[in-house]
């Protein structure tokens, strides 16, 4: 596209007075340092979160597995409780229902333990970083 000569000459001589370059660079570098500090903190937080999630997952799996070994005991306990409380029971189907109940107790327990393990690990790592 052709350039208009008059406008080209007008802009060729355009050289406005700008605020001091040193002040501009100093202000910019201070802002860059603040940004870097924020980025480092965010990276530390992400790393802490990943570690806490990993530890919480391991603990959840281990606790879940350990409690699972007691499922027959839990089911029998629930079955025994139902015998005490109810009068008309069917001996064939109740143990199955209570096995489901036992698994639900194990699941809730594993989730509850994992969440608490995550909070605990996260708090411990934050405390260690701040000291």
């Amino acid at each position: 596209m052709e350039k208009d000569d008059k406008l080209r000459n007008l802009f060729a001589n355009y050289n406005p007075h700008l605020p001091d370059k040193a002040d501009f660079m100093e202000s910019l570098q201070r802002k860059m340092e603040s940004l870097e500090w924020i980025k480092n903190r965010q990276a530390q937080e992400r790393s802490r979160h990943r570690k806490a999630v990993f530890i919480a997952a391991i603990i959840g799996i281990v606790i879940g597995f350990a409690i699972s070994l007691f499922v027959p005991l839990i089911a029998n306990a629930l079955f025994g409780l139902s015998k005490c409380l109810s009068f008309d029971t069917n001996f064939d189907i109740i143990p199955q229902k209570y096995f489901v109940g036992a698994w639900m107790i194990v699941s809730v327990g594993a989730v509850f333990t994992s969440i608490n393990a995550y909070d605990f690990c996260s708090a411990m790592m934050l405390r260690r970083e701040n000291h």
Partner: protein
Amino acid sequence: MTRNDFITIVEQTQGAFRRFLTALCGGDSFQADDIAQEAFLKAYLACDDLSADSKFKPWLYRIGYTTFINHQRSKSKHSSTSSIDAVADVIATDSSDDAFRYQELHEALVKLSEKERSAVLLFYLEDYSTKEIAEIMETSNVAIRQLLTRGRKRLREFLKQID
């Protein structure tokens, strides 16, 4: 890109970039410097995403143009002052001789739309081709030619009126 590499590039490009933004802001060099700093910070945050074969300067000008447009949008939401009044305020407070030397040019530039002004300045001040300007302003080559045709016609008219 390391921090020192980035600072080196900033020192090389800041003069022309700030001059472009000053013209874009109708002579308000303080607003131009605010936009320039914001653009450089955005570029610093995103510089790792810049591919090796991409050029830094057009990419920086794209960020600068977008930042300027965002500033204008937020200004128009919060202020009822017209752009002509804003230019007059800047000229009235700036005691430098440059303020008077370029007063007519700034007044004429401010009368253009933001897109026309950006296209004209990138073409005449920064010497970019229409294709490069289209990439900076994220629009088509045809649209840039139309903006340039309209922009310089109106600029010539405004400058004649002032003369």
